[in-house]
């Protein structure tokens, strides 16, 4: 284990007032395994920082992001980088994005940003692209090819009905909007992805980072990407593909063909699981063991962050759940799909995991 010197401890302790409460992460250090060396990255997602007015922001959501930043800063050894999974802002306002950047600036690690619809639909991604990150990009890390893919576009016919940018933003921000519009990667994005992957051999492990799930769970809440099958087809020739996404604010994992899917937690609030809305059917993945029902009287319950351990091109996803028991989901080579370390066997489930 890497030791914390007094100086580095003080530096880290200064990052947040939660220093005393923040756990030190114990991660097994494994040295190089050729091209696919083991490594970790941390994930913070769906912060939804909400501007009230002037210098006032919603306290609850600010505290969620601050806590995640503090805890990631205390990971020991530190992760190689941090993924921010989108929805830094609630209504795409400059005030919200800058407030979020200031909070994330406490991290001394590189951040890989994925845009969410709450960051996009006020100015159609202008601020984000100018000051934060491109919408589509890729990078290689210790033998794994990472792709950040913008999946929160939608059809022009829906976008063009709005004259007022805030009206458009509010229309997209309402999760249960009966007049909403499904997400798409779009033709241009798919063309970019194809080109980006063109030179890679099928043995290259791929990790795709998106905001919306690259499959179809529940259309009424946009847990849905309309051209998902076309994107999955582009990824079909690779042996090891993992798609990790935000947007759903809950533990979901799935396997579709060669692709393993993991959802990120939100630091702000948990969404209900789609099957709990009884008026419409969902395609909720049967293999997911749901997270515990959130207790609203414990403000941070149902929220959290996660870290991914990557070994031999497969991800083990550790969910750090505040005010609840952590969960670990890993890819089972024999079964060919992700499983929960403790609860996958139906006889091991506990009553709070039953949602209705």
């Amino acid at each position, binding site marked *: 284990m890497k030791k914390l010197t007094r100086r580095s401890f003080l530096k880290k302790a200064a990052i947040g007032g939660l220093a005393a409460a923040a756990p030190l992460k114990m991660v097994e250090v494994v040295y190089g395994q050729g091209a696919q060396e083991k490594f970790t990255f941390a994930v913070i997602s769906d912060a939804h920082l*909400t501007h*009230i007015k002037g210098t006032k922001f*919603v*306290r*609850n959501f600010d505290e969620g992001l601050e806590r995640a930043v503090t805890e990631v800063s205390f990971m020991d050894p530190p992760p190689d980088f941090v993924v921010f999974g989108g929805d830094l802002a609630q209504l795409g306002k400059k005030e919200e994005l800058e407030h979020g950047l200031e909070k994330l600036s406490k991290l001394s690690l590189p951040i890989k940003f994925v845009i969410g619809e709450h960051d996009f639909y006020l100015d159609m991604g202008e601020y984000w692209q100018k000051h934060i990150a491109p919408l589509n990009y890729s990078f290689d890390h210790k033998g794994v090819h990472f792709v950040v893919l913008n999946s929160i576009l939608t059809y022009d016919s829906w976008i063009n009905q709005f004259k007022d940018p805030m009206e458009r933003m509010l229309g997209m921000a*309402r*999760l*249960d909007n009966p007049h909403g519009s499904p997400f798409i990667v779009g033709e241009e994005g798919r063309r970019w992805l194809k080109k980006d992957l063109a030179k890679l051999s099928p043995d290259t492990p791929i990790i795709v980072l998106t905001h919306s799930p690259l499959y179809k769970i529940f259309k*009424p*809440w946009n847990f849905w990407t309309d051209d998902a099958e076309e994107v999955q087809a582009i990824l079909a020739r690779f042996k090891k593909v993992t798609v990790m996404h935000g947007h759903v604010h809950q533990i979901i994992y799935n396997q579709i063909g060669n692709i393993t899917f993991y959802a990120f937690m939100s630091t702000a*609030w*948990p*969404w*209900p699981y789609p099957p*709990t*809305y*009884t*008026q419409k059917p969902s395609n909720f993945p049967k293999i997911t063991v749901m997270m515990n*029902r959130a*207790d*609203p*009287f414990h*403000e941070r319950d149902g929220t959290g962050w996660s870290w991914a351990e990557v070994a031999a091109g497969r991800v083990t996803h550790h969910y750090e759940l505040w005010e609840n028991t952590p969960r670990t989901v890993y890819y089972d080579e024999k079964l060919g799909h992700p499983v929960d370390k403790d609860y996958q066997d139906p006889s091991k489930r506990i009553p709070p995991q039953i*949602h*209705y």
Partner: protein
Amino acid sequence: MFNKILVLLAVFGLLVFASNARSDEFTKEDLKKWREAFMEVVKEGERLFHSPLGRNKVSCDMCHPNAANTHPETYPKFQKQLGKVVELRDMINWCIQNPLEGDPLPLDDPRMIALEAYIKWERRGVPLAPGKH
């Protein structure tokens, strides 16, 4: 005297019969009208549910899209965090006061009735399960 009583009884009987007859007689138009009156309150409830009801811009739908995870069919129930049996409206007020940082609504406030109407409408068809946690 006897005749008078008979007349009175006859009039009373007619009245009872007449009022019974009236209470049984409602038309398809009436049903439509009452349904519309109800749906208007549901619609107002939906609007309130998607509006900031407190002082911090947070709204009910942010945690409860389509009023999911509100479980209206389980109330009244022992709310473990409050240590007593409460109604759905008590939890609505708890949410308004805490995550929404607002003031509680009077329990007979038309806004409270509208919020309950919307929440229950989104849960229609689910069997009653009072007391279920």
